[in-house]
């Protein structure tokens, strides 16, 4: 039902896109590297901050 309702919107969007000829970016999320320890360290620091705030009643 939704697809039929908005089919003309998609057609217009496709036509507008064709005119622009937009290149695909080479940047991919899969290529973003993040050492596992960074997430853990961030989690630890956020936890300490949360506890401090709670203790200070903020």
């Amino acid at each position, binding site marked *: 039902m*939704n*697809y039929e*309702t908005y089919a003309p919107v*998609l057609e217009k*969007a*496709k036509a507008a896109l064709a005119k622009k000829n937009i290149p695909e*970016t080479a*940047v991919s999320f899969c290529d973003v590297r993040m050492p596992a320890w*960074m997430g853990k360290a961030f989690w630890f620091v956020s936890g300490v901050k949360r506890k401090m705030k709670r203790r200070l009643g903020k």
Partner: protein
Amino acid sequence: MKRIVQILDSYSYGDGMGNHAGALLNALKARGVDTQIYAKYVDPRLSHMGKNVAEYVPSQEDVILYHLGAGSELNRKVTEYPGRLIINYHNITPPEFFADYNPALEANCRAGYEDVKFLADKVEMAISVSAYNSSELARMGYTCPLHQAPIVMDFSDYTKAPDAATVEKYSDGVSNIVFVGRICPNKKHEDLMLDFYYYTKYFNPNSRLILVGNYRGFEGYYLKLKKYAKKLGLTNVVFTGHIKFSQILAYYHTADLFLCESEHEGFCIPLVEAMHFGVPIVAYDSSAIGETLGTGGVLLREKNPRLTASVMDQILRDESLRKTILEQQKENLKRFDSKAVADRYMEFLLGD
């Protein structure tokens, strides 16, 4: 009259399942039903509405509505109570989404799925918050009556005043593309960022992407997203982190478009919220998103970021198209009328 007891793992403040249980409690009380909420954890701010499950005195006369949406020791414990057991299935996020970022939650969800299977022949009825969830139960061997009723939403909460400072800050003529939801891998924030990259670079540089949501438990994913934004050269992406309810309201008030690329939702409350606040929606068709959206918003069959950006541009530039979408969204919103939904729950819970 029968007593309706709602049991859930955590009765948390501001949480979708908790809000649903609370709204249902109020609706049942307003109809004169004897009812109570019990949970393993009750947020102190909700102590006037819920009690610790250790205080529950089971009775054969009780109708137990058990809210199931994660792994919990209660998932099996509830079968020991003598009352009629009905589950309200909110869905569990497939554990694979969490493998790289939160092994504890991955294990919890895996256990949760095992518990759902365990309960298949032990419940009298299952009420799912979407047809998608019902079909999942059927696939997992449920042969009991499977009903559907959406989340009971208390829309009066949304009439509260939005945070004035946030409204002022983001009412600056820049187009605000908003998504509301926990920063977590199944919500696919990276896909939102890629859509936005094409939109802001090739269609409308005077725009920003606002990602409203807590990243607790997914700090690694959040840091990776920030790095991704940098690599894409995006300087106009806002991560709000955990914020007050009045600030969430402010983001809805200032939003020009709600964009959703989530790949797993058992219902998706923010879609209904966006409809309520008159924000046009563009969403990728996965899990329960299509059925919650109905005709109220543009549903996309495929993940094609350049096409999504072009659709966003159509909506934000074409006043009459935006008006049509908002009218459809308003019509669709009627399906979530809290009184009508609460009546459906009453029918299921008190029917013989």
